[in-house]
């Protein structure tokens, strides 16, 4: 099970027992934080970040496959709200992230889901919802920690 005390600095911890549970959790996150939220996703290679975004897409009724944006950097989908899927894996520093048209990307309507968001730590606006996926006690399990940085916090 997940250690709930690990949710220091507020926030909540959810235990998921497989990719499907992670996708369902993604739908709940959209309900909770709304269809214009910015989600900063953290977790190692294979932690399930893309899986979480697939759950968001499904909740929004997106019909296309949600593939890894590692190569193209940004993928956009149309659903009940637009979904912008951003991957910073290949970007080396903040200069390159800004080159991506960062401000414009974040001002778009709809959900913004950012993988490897820690690479843009200083560039994330107030109100960003952080989601960290950590290994659980079995290979398919994850501890998902969710917290939000409010303005002035």
């Amino acid at each position, binding site marked *: 099970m997940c250690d709930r005390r690990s949710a220091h600095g507020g926030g909540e911890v959810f235990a998921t027992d497989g*990719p*499907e549970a992670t*996708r369902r959790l993604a739908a709940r996150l959209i309900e909770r934080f709304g269809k214009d939220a910015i989600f900063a996703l953290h977790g*190692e*290679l*294979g*932690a*399930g970040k*893309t*899986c979480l975004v*697939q759950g968001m*897409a*499904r909740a929004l009724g*997106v*019909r*296309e*496959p*949600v*593939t*890894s944006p*590692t*190569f*193209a*950097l940004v993928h956009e989908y149309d659903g009940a709200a637009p979904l912008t899927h951003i991957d910073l*894996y*290949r*970007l*080396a520093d903040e*200069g*390159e992230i800004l*080159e991506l048209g960062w401000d414009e990307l974040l001002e778009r309507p709809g959900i913004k889901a950012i993988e490897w968001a820690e690479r843009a730590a200083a560039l994330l606006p107030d109100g960003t919802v952080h989601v960290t996926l950590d*290994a659980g006690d079995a*290979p398919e399990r994850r501890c998902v920690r969710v917290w939000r940085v409010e303005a002035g916090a």
Partner: protein
Amino acid sequence: MRLPHRRRALAAPTPLYPSGAPAGNAAGRRNRVTTARVWPLLAPMRVLGIETSCDETAAAVVEDGRVRASRVRSQVRDHAPFGGVVPELASRRHVEALPGLLAEALREAGLAWSDLDLIAVTAGPGLAGALLVGVGAAQALHAATGLPLAAVHHLQGHLHSVFLGPDAPDPMRVYPMLVLLVSGGHTGLVRVAAPGRQAWIGRTLDDAAGEALDKGATLLGLGYPGGPAIERAARGGDPARHAFPRGRIAGSEAPTGGLDPELCLSFSGLKTALRYYLRDHPEARGGTALRDTAAAYQEAVIDALCARVGAALGRERYAALAGVGGVARNGRLRSRLGEIAATAGIPLLLAAPDWCTDNAAMIAAAAGAGLGRPVPDPAALDVRPNWPL
């Protein structure tokens, strides 16, 4: 020394697409196919190709489908410390490398600018900043020489790469052709009904095969690019040592965009499986055990690809099977595809290793075969980072 060709005396560039059909509609596609067959009968066609969509800068000269010169500068070493392509770095390196490569390609071909008939440039898909370097160069060359431009889809170039070798297959005998396309961010099966008429019939629903290899190599501490690194590390290893998942579709309800789920792939579970295997078996990272781990991981990627190829061949009678793109350089994948094609009794067309990875020869040759998109107003040509196939 070549004799000057009669047509060189004409000052005005001969229109490449005499029909002048607008690109994109059905009529345009038909006309392009017609042009592809008729044009070589009219005059030899010399195409300069430019490719800068990702981390290879490339220039080439192709004459009537034969490669006269091909130059590629890879940025692999520049990107290795980052474990992947770094986009801004890519653009800067393209700017530095392209002028020299263009001059070298022309010199190697023994041609002058005035000997060329067409400039072909990759306009997408790819990294916007990287594509802009090639397109900008093509626009400048058009302004300086008056040569017409053709915008080529990067994957159209890969699909054409099996026709580049000296023993290129007879294009009349290979369609419909099933192509395993494994290049950059793209992984899937393409059904090619005729030149320029193609569609995805299956594709990855998450990571590309090359990405699975790159990220697997990172987890194994093997460096970048991951495909060759894993292939080297796997030499002599036992692929049966551990059974990694074969790219099955987790949760059958995953949307496939209308494609047959049994022809689609998923690699994200494989990456996760490797990560947990290494956590639980730290010894699998080193020594001879690393050989086995790398071999087992590589086998899982290749098995996943080959299973979809086999399924597609079971759905329809194809005239040929082809393998293109960077991952098609993998020796193990090439021999497995050979077995599949032999069982199916159809020819296997594998892009030569030099034409698997990104190059400009395939771009020039595709344009020369009428598979590019004519650019009526070169100054307005824009890049298309998300150009669909």
